[in-house]
């Protein structure tokens, strides 16, 4: 049994005038500790798939199981708690909160976890910032950091709650090659050393080849 299971998942976006099939009958199983790349041309449904796996969006049909738990019919409250404990997100544009400093950004997921005190939150956030090599920047604002540093903060935020799964949507897409390599190295460390499952959407063949498996999409269909 995989830690992520998608069973006959389809996603249709409907407006008053048009109906767009974003995903069609997708079946994907990802094992615990696997590093999987999702590839395909723009508009093929990669990000839609990642959003569905991340429980940010619901499939039109089909089922999503995370760590053996079906997410269908979960309340917003249950779904939020589930996301908080099981999933970490890394976005292409980092999506750090500009009004908060680095430490507060990293602490943020722990705010929504029941029973974690303020001092414990700070300790955990400092520990992951140490790990991504940014403890000297914890009181800086995101605007004061480079792109690579921002993405490392985003990774720290994704792992601070110790989730089993990290979902990365083109994590190096906004970075130059050197910074991109640093970020990829960090993701591989998290996969190899911590055994975290990583699902990464990418356009970069070289980066994809370094992962355990590549799942390819075309026009909403899984082709590999």
């Amino acid at each position, binding site marked *: 049994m995989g830690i992520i299971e998608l069973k006959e998942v389809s996603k249709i976006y409907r407006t008053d005038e048009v109906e767009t099939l974003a995903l069609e009958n997708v079946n994907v199983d990802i094992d615990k500790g696997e590093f999987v790349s999702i590839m395909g041309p723009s508009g093929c449904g990669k990000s839609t798939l990642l*959003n569905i796996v*991340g429980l*940010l*969006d619901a499939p039109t049909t089909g089922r999503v199981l995370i760590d053996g738990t079906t997410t269908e019919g979960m309340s*917003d*409250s249950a779904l*939020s*708690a589930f*996301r*908080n*404990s099981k999933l970490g*997100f890394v*976005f292409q544009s980092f*999506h750090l*909160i*500009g*009004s*908060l400093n680095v430490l*507060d950004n990293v602490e*943020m*997921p722990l*705010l*929504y*976890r029941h029973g974690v005190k*303020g001092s414990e939150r700070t300790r955990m956030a400092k520990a992951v910032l140490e790990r991504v090599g940014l403890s000297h920047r914890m009181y800086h604002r995101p605007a004061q950091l480079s792109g690579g540093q921002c993405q490392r903060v985003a990774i720290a*935020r994704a792992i601070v*709650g110790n989730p089993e799964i990290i979902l990365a949507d083109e994590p190096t897409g906004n970075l130059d090659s050197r910074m991109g390599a640093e970020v990829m190295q960090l993701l591989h460390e998290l996969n190899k050393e911590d055994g975290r499952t990583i699902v990464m959407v990418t356009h970069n063949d070289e980066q994809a080849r370094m992962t355990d498996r590549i799942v390819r999409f075309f026009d909403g269909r899984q082709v590999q």
Partner: protein
Amino acid sequence: MREMMRQAMAQLRSQRMLTVVGITGTALSIFLIMVVVMLQQVKVAPYAPVSNRPRMLYAQYASIVVENTPYQSNGPMSYESAKELYGNLETAERSTIFASYLTVATMTVPGGRPVSADMLTTDGEFWNVYDFTFLSGKPYDQTAVDAAQHVAVIDESTARRLFGSTDAAGREFQLNHSPYTVAGVVRDVSTLAEECFAHVWVPLTTTPLINNTWNSYLMGSFSAVVLAKSSDDFAAIREECDRRMRAYNKTVKESNWQFISRGRPYTKEEVLVGQWANVEPDLKTYRRDRLIVFLILLIVPAINLSGMTESRMRQRREEIGVRRAFGCKRSTLLMQLFGENLMITVVAGLIGWALSVGFAYLFSTMLFLEGYSNTLTMPKVSLEMLVQPSTFAWALGFCFVLNLLSTGVPAWRASRTNIVNAINKK
């Protein structure tokens, strides 16, 4: 909580224009509404010498009827009636009887210019019910009242005008051509403490007002105020007053007049609501009407502020999406947005409240001048009168309601935003 404070501060810093406009708008709204609240609050709030207002019941007027006829009379009581109806009540701490209205008196000292003053005639208990601040001397007591001694308490302004000093206890003067001795000098009283305001107070037995009666000596020129041990005793006091009234009605049966209570004695708020002596005050309707006025005063700025809050939410769309992705529940988000805005509203509300206190203090004459008044003295307010826990509570309450009205819909919409769309700022 810490996160909310931090986020609220971050919001204040990051969206300065919106913050300035929002805080100014909220502060002005709270300022406006607090001025309206203060207009009423100064008349019911406790402050010296009316510090016991929350424990006071007022029988400013009485009502008598001829049974089975349309004849009735409503107005101040005679001293005898006031004593019979409200004197020495068992369920109350004490009660006082004094003139229903001020009379203008002329005060002179040998070689001095005549001084015109507002005079109130009282019993001895008056000084135990109201907490005047004595600058010199002491009040006259009931023994002096019963003996019709020509003693007087005067306020400090009158003391200065007459004697050039507040140290005037024992000094003699003429009051309406009768000799009086100053028993004590008190700090000036605001006209807003309307029930006990005067420039000079004398025993009610020393002026002809006590003989000014009509309707078989039942009605006259006096009011009564009952001081309860606690406001919890009001019901018991009213019951005792009703018993007293039934007993007194038996003794005055031959006059054909009978007293009816009309729910008296009233609280200070009921006195304010009561426009006429022949109609029982309708506190419920008055409060409802005030609530409607306050809501209208709040809704208008709330609609404007709501637009700004919506704009703020739009700017924070991405952040809201990210927070939701990392496990923030809709309800938590709603509370967070509401809490953050409440903090900003409270800051603005405090500014508005302080502005209203300052405005009321500086422009008290214009603000508190009554259309109909017993006196020509201009109203003055002190900070003690304006800075009341009750007005402060009102201000905070208005902030909460304003925040609820202006943030409720935008925050609710933000909490329902599709996470993916929010993150992608769609």
